[in-house]
Every structure is written in C-alpha cells, then in structure tokens.
C-alpha cells in the first residue's frame, strides 16, 4: 500500500457512513482509485457490516409474541 493509506484508513468509517465533506469524499475516492489495497479493505468493511447484521440476528421466539400480546390492556 502506498502513500496516503493511513489517512485513507482513518476515513473508512466516516466514508461508509456518508458523513464526510464533499472534499474529503473526493480525496478518499482519488486514493481508492489508485490503491487496490485500500479499495479492497473498504469493500471488505462494507460486506463485514452486512455480515455482522445478519449473523447477529436472532428471530424473536413466537411464544414471546404471544406473551407480549397478553400484556395488552386495551382492545
């Protein structure tokens, strides 16, 4: 990885969160275009976030749904 990778690493989270300024986005994109190492790590991070969300998901037990409905005071 070449020059600017440290800065690019620091920009990864805010870049993917969409909270960088236009100038910072341009800066990051310029670096990513010329740096396959950083580009790959950014793509990995995007996939990782999705993987974490899916892996951490555990459906609610049906029986809890019934218990919650039983707590209703109205209707």
């Amino acid at each position: 990885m070449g020059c600017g990778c440290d800065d690019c690493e620091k920009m990864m989270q805010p870049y993917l969160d969409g909270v960088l300024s236009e100038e910072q986005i341009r800066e990051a994109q310029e670096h990513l275009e010329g740096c396959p190492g950083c580009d790959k790590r950014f793509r990995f991070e995007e996939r990782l976030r999705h993987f974490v969300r899916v892996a951490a998901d555990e459906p609610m037990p049906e029986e809890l749904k019934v218990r919650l409905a039983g707590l209703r005071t109205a209707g």
Partner: protein
Amino acid sequence: MSESAPTAAETRRIAEEARDRVRFEEEALQLSDQVYRVARRLTGSREEAEDLVQDTYARAFRSWRQFQPGTNLRAWLLRILTNLNIDRGRRVQRTPEQTPLEEGDYYLYNRLESTIPDENPDEERVLEQLSQNAVVEALAEVPHDFRDVLVLVDIGEFSYAEAAQILDIPVGTVMSRLHRGRRILKQQLAEKAVVS
C-alpha cells in the same frame, strides 16, 4: 338538556382515548421483532432478552400516555428498554476507561488475509474466514457503552440522532463510541477467527 352536552363530550373523549390506546398497542406490538433483535444483543442470553422485552412492553403499555403520537415509537420503546437494562445493574461491569486501545480499521482484514495461503485473495474470500458464532461471541466481548451504540446503529439500524435520543447522550458521543466500538469488535473478531 344543558347537562347532556358535557356528558356527550366526555363520552366522545373516552371513546377516542380507547381508540388511541388500541392503536398505540398495536403499533408497539408490530415493532416487537425489531425491539427483540436489539435486546438480544444487549444482553447475554435469550432468557434475559425475553425478560427485558417483556418488562419493556409492560411498562410501555402502562405509560402509553407519555408517548407523543407522531414521534418515533421504535426509539421510544428502545429508550425504555435501554433504561431498564441499565437499571438491572449492568453498570457495575466494565467501563470504557478500562478497555484496551483498539487496533486500526484495517487490522481485521490484515489478520484474516495473513491466514490465507493464496496470493492476494479477494475480499469475499477474506470474509469467509469469519463464522456467525465468532460475530456473536465477539459482540458479547465489546464493553457495554460501546456495544449499546454498536447494536443500535449497526444491528438495529437506528440513525446517530435516534441512538443519541435513546441513550440520552450527545450525537458526537454516539459517533465516537460507534467508531471505537467497531474497532474493538474487529479486534475481537480477529482473535476469534485466527485462534479457532
């Protein structure tokens, strides 16, 4: 005749309130899957998550009048849930000051890539080194203050502003805890993936 008007108004008010209450309860119940998803990752076990969700709904149904119609019901429910969770004494556990300094954002990728014999593997191949269990275990290792934000934003898909409202902390704190929480999570994932 002069007394019938207030009675009619009163009757109408009671009917409207009953209708609002039914609507509130129905809308709250429709969100229960999302509430449970967050609860499950904030707590250590399924049983704890179930108790927490049940207590949250019991309290929500009791204090439904405090909810302002038109505002964010999902965030309102999660605010109750996170407060109940904190009341349960989980604050006696680790505080952020005691957490180790996390590695940089590329750390996990670099560690995983180093375990693959191929030259220059693509990111999909690198991700395959992680298991679902590793994610669940690694999340449980993230200290509470960071995990609350991480679970709300990255798993519950709440915005920064919503997470700030739920946890009653500034948006800037949400952002810094999220940033550090993700790094701590990745460090934990690296350890679990590379050891196992």
